[in-house]
């Protein structure tokens, strides 16, 4: 059993209106000095067996083609064994 965590974030140069809204809410709720908020997505994927070779390569491909949109987002992928 392997646990794959894919984090997807908007690229730094892309405006994040949702992050902007959260930043405003944090300020209204009393947190001072919030310089920036970026909102992203996290996918936690459980797979049977080890994720190596072709399956890992496919996982990367799907992280880029399905889970993220490379025009506006970056992804990072980590594999944790024996979750």
């Amino acid at each position, binding site marked *: 059993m392997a646990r794959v965590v894919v984090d997807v974030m908007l690229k730094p140069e*892309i*405006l994040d*209106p*949702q992050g*902007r*809204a959260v930043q405003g809410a944090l300020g209204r709720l009393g947190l001072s000095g919030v310089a920036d908020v970026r909102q992203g997505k996290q996918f936690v994927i459980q797979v049977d067996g080890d994720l190596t070779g072709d399956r890992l390569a496919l996982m990367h491909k799907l992280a880029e083609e*399905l*889970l993220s*949109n490379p*025009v*506006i987002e970056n992804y990072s992928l980590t594999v944790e064994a024996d979750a």
Partner: protein
Amino acid sequence: MSARIGVVTFPGTLDDRDAARAVRIAGGEPVELWHGDDDIKGVDAVILPGGFSYGDYLRCGAISRFAPVMNSIIDGAKGGLPVLGICNGFQILVESHLLPGALMRNESRHFICRDQKLRIENADSMWTRDYFKNQEIVVPLKNGEGNYFADPATLDMLEGEGRVVARYLDVNPNGSARDIAGIRNERGNVVGLMPHPEHAVESLTGPTTEGLPFFTSVLTSLVSA
């Protein structure tokens, strides 16, 4: 025999009926296509209508792009099949990489619904040839994620090749780069448009009937092809 124009229904599509009606009023024969069916029934052109396919889960259009019907449509579009994506349909076309760029959440963070003035800047596409260049029209606009984004080099390429089909006038409602409301592919058979011409084809229900030429254009294009 009138041209057969496919209108795709995904789970969460809203505007398929209006799109089919617009096709009928323009003089074409609408053909219902289903997202889970890879058969596009030999249609002459395809419309991807507006709505919230798959609930906009993941990203708008991201899951629809992998629906079985899209395999046939993407192959067809690469071979010259006319495809018009309206609103959510435009989002599906960029997710499919048939058109460049991406559609982001509106800069204002508000869902926008208004009658929107546009300038038709390219009257050479298969979906805009019944307009004249720089014609100004008013059609409804309704979106939460219509903020067109592409990197500067892509925007310059689109502008340089005359591939900006429509631009917002007076107000930029969603923060789109360079006021872009719609673009086309290089060949001119694929057009993506954020506003809704299918809601402006009858005076009883639309603000104007100035959306109708999108639907007559493709019929003209098919006859002359």
